[in-house]
């Protein structure tokens, strides 16, 4: 067939073959509004066209999953008729261009995804990745992002309780800002986005629409080059006060019985929200764009449909309930406008100034968006680790590690976040997982953590994917909670490159394996591709956010040493795996070897055992081991409790034992008199466990290796980030 397609001068990001598809679906040439709609709906960001095939393979089911991926956020049953609703989302590109507003609006966006389902947001988390500290932009980006997250979260009154931060040169031109929100709802008050009811009113609420971030969704899917910094597309400005009003107004409306469906306006604003609602419900929709509240004069249909103005929602109401709903939004001083109604045509019809300005079929656009099976090559297995020498005495090596950019305390960050507001934060940042009480419940609490070790993922995406899931599971376990489900944020480079696509496929495989083995399904997530600058991709970074439940918050465990003279034990096997370790990188300057393998059956066995110990009150402190290994773990527990320790490393290679990053391990303490009983119990359960030493004093001493004072360790650990931000280092 010879087709003579005349392509428009501006394809708005669509590929020629995608434009051919547009012609087929439309049966005619689209006008500018229609083309713009196709372009955002089919952008990577909205359509998941490169990732869909692989995401479908992730395990998403469990008895406690109420809603898996596909809605605004995932929903799990946490007992007593209650549900936890959560999701994570990226705002990488906007945050690089304008760190304060980019990060702030990232928080605003993820909050809306969660409260749109009927949940009261009770906690925010964030996973941040910056370039090398010495890169000239890094300090400014850290400062802006942290201020932005705090500026938004503090004002809306949702505590920011946990997160993670890495520095690596691969993020120099493309930082990652992933924000997660956890909310609480009653199981019989969960709201979905599928439109229903012929003729039902389509209602717009929240802020007015301006010319904000037109084409943000396509920008989020475009690779960066140096001159995109110069182009400086319009960035949205967040208004946390309005968001606060919107949360309260929506939750108040949800107490009534008038909502058929509700959806936030996220990326691609009115376009994607209206298409998704109509498509999910198999309905058509007619919108009168003159009715959309406008912030500026002279806005065009194109601008109305593609604006990414923040703090807006779309609601399908039961007929006749408009006055009741309007009264609530007026009380909160928010805009309220009926902008259209549902039809049974399966089409979206747009009107403006009395004329029809767009007419598109809904399903082909929303559901038959392109799906690519991108070519991929598996990541070659990493070369074995070359011999390792030990240039520094152990105390000096520990000092260097604990004050390194990736390991130093994040206090400077989380003290700028209100992590206490609402009065339910039982475990503040600085521990393994944050713990937030379930409001008005006598004993229940949620535990949450976000984790990923990108250097592992780069060396071996499958192991790295497993490890990221396992680490959140371990963190939640270490506070005594039962891990229930995860959300993911898949940050990768350009999927059109087979090696990058291979990283993605590998990570998805690893994540899936871990979810199955740990009974820990994926209930929501987000994909951010094209994270590259000038052809150089970021380290593959599948950030995982986990949520678990603690039935009795009084049993919550923390990592601080509690008393001098207690026994310190290690659960799990220490083999001394130094490949891809922090020790190797920070002390020897080498990023090499395979990452530690993750044996998921052992993960589960060891973790379940520890949780049992915590719940029966057999341990006084617990901490999972990850970056930096055992000695770093001991140091963190000592610093948190301001009590030193005396330990000995019995096994062969002392440095491997001290700094190896073998997985599935925990440190615990217990009264000295009960150590033998605990070891016996572990042996009976088939769990490797060893006695490491005793707590006490104000120093950390490793037999035969030397001593270092807590004061010196604290100085290095607490000092680096504030010092760096003040312009030192």
């Amino acid at each position, binding site marked *: 067939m010879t087709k003579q397609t005349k392509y428009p001068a501006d394809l708005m990001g669509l590929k020629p073959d995608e434009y051919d598809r547009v012609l087929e679906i439309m049966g005619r040439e689209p006008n500018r509004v229609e083309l713009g709609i196709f372009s955002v709906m089919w952008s990577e960001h909205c359509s998941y066209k490169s990732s869909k095939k692989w995401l479908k393979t992730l395990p998403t089911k469990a008895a406690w999953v109420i809603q898996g991926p596909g809605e605004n956020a995932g929903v799990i049953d946490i007992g007593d008729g209650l549900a936890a609703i959560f999701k994570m989302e990226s705002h990488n590109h906007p945050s690089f261009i304008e760190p304060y507003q980019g990060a702030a609006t990232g928080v605003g966006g993820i909050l809306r995804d969660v409260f749109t389902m009927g949940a009261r947001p009770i906690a925010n988390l964030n996973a941040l990745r910056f370039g090398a500290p010495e890169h000239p932009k890094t300090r400014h980006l850290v400062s802006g992002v942290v*201020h932005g997250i*705090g*500026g938004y979260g*503090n*004002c*809306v*009154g949702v505590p920011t309780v946990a997160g993670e931060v890495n520095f690596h040169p691969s993020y120099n031109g493309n930082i990652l800002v992933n924000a997660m929100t956890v909310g609480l709802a009653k199981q019989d008050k969960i709201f979905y986005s599928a439109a229903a009811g012929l003729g039902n009113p389509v209602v717009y609420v929240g802020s007015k629409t301006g010319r904000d971030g037109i084409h943000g969704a396509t920008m989020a899917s475009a690779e960066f080059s140096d001159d995109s910094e110069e182009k400086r597309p319009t960035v949205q400005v967040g*208004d*946390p*006060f*309005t968001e*606060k*009003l919107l949360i*309260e107004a929506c939750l108040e409306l949800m107490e009534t019985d008038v909502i058929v469906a509700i959806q936030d306006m996220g990326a691609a604003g009115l376009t994607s929200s209206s298409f998704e609602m109509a498509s999910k419900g198999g309905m058509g929709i007619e919108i009168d764009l003159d009715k959309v509240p406008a912030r500026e004069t002279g806005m065009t249909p194109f601008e109305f449909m593609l604006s990414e103005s923040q703090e807006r929602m779309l609601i399908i109401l039961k007929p006749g309930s408009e006055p009741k709903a309007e009264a609530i939004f007026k*009380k*909160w*001083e928010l805009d309220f406008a009926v902008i259209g109604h549902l039809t049974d045509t399966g089409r979206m019809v747009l009107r403006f100034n009395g004329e029809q300005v767009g007419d598109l079929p809904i399903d082909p656009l929303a559901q038959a968006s392109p799906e690519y099976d991108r070519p991929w090559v598996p990541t070659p297995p990493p070369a074995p680790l070359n011999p390792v020498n030990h240039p520094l005495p152990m105390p000096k090596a520990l000092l260097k590690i604990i004050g390194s950019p990736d390991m130093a305390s994040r206090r400077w960050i*989380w*003290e*700028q*976040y*209100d*992590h*206490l*507001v*609402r*009065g*339910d*934060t*039982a475990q503040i940042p600085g521990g393994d997982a944050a713990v937030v*009480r379930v409001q008005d419940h006598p004993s229940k609490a949620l535990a949450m953590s976000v984790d990923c070790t990108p250097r592992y993922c780069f060396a071996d995406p499958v192991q790295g994917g497993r490890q990221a899931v396992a680490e959140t599971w371990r963190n939640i376990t270490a506070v005594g909670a039962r891990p229930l489900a995860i959300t993911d944020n898949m940050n990768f480079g350009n999927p059109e490159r087979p090696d990058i696509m291979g990283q993605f496929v590998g990570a998805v495989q690893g994540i899936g394996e871990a979810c199955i083995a740990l009974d820990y399904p994926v209930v929501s997530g987000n994909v951010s591709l094209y994270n590259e600058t000038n052809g150089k991709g970021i380290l593959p970074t599948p950030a995982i956010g986990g949520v678990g439940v603690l039935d009795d*918050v*009084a049993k*919550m465990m923390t990592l601080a040493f509690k008393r001098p003279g207690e026994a310190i034990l290690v659960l799990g096997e220490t083999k001394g795996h130094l490949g891809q370790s922090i020790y190797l990188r920070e002390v020897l300057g080498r990023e090499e070897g395979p990452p530690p393998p993750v044996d998921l059956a052992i993960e589960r066995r060891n973790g379940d055992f520890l949780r049992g110990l915590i719940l029966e009150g057999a341990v006084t402190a617990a901490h999972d081991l990850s970056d930096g290994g055992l000695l770093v773990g001991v140091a963190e527990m000592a610093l948190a409790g301001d009590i030193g320790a005396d330990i000995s490393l019995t096994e062969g290679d002392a440095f491997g034992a001290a700094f190896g990053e073998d997985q599935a391990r925990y440190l615990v303490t217990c009264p000295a008199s009960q150590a033998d009983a605990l070891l016996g119990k572990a042996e009976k359960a088939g769990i490797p466990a060893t006695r490491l030493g005793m707590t006490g004093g104000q120093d950390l001493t490793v037999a035969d290796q030397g001593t270092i004072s807590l004061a010196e360790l604290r100085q290095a650990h607490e000092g680096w980030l504030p010092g760096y931000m003040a312009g030192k280092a």
Partner: protein
Amino acid sequence: MKAAIIVFPGSNRDRDMKMALTKASGGKPPLEVWHGDADFPKVDLIVLPGGFSYGDYLRCGAMAAHSPVMREVKARADKGTRVLAVCNGFQIACEAGLLPGVLMSNAGLQFICREITMRVETSDSIFTGKYRKGQCIRVPVAHHDGNYNADADTVKMLEDEDRVAFRYANLFGDVTPETNLNGSVGNIAGVFNKGKTVLGLMPHPENATDPVCGGTDGVGLFAGLAEALQ
């Protein structure tokens, strides 16, 4: 004790305050008064809670200070109704002229959320009667604009009239530049009006009333009020 919490659209520690007051009054929840309702029943204690009353984009508390409900709060305070103003509430009370001074940006220009120590400067008030003068208590702060400022004459007057309620200190009771987390004049964390019927403070005693979340050093303040106002 009959208490009312004034809820502005951007209040966000109203719930924390409600939990603390409910506990202190033996399970009886306080009244919640919406900022648009200047008309509310007679109470023994009015609370201005923390948060970002109207977004606080101009100056913290500036807009709330001019809201209709604040006119009513001022009128009642003038007649002796007790007022507890915490964090954003303190900012509002200063802007409204219920308390002297202003709250400027923290000297470090950053939001600070952290548990701190404050020294009780007087036990001669119904707010602080359950504490010893000189006692050091641990409570969290969470603010960006807590830098208390007043001219030298005002500060002298506050001191002469025993109207400084709390100062930022260390656990030994030393009031030093290092313990001055936000730049406040004289490390002042909280002040009274003349007559000590109104207390404004930046730290959050309401977030220190539960052993599971934040400790219990703030309990004394609420227990004292409940006892005195029953």
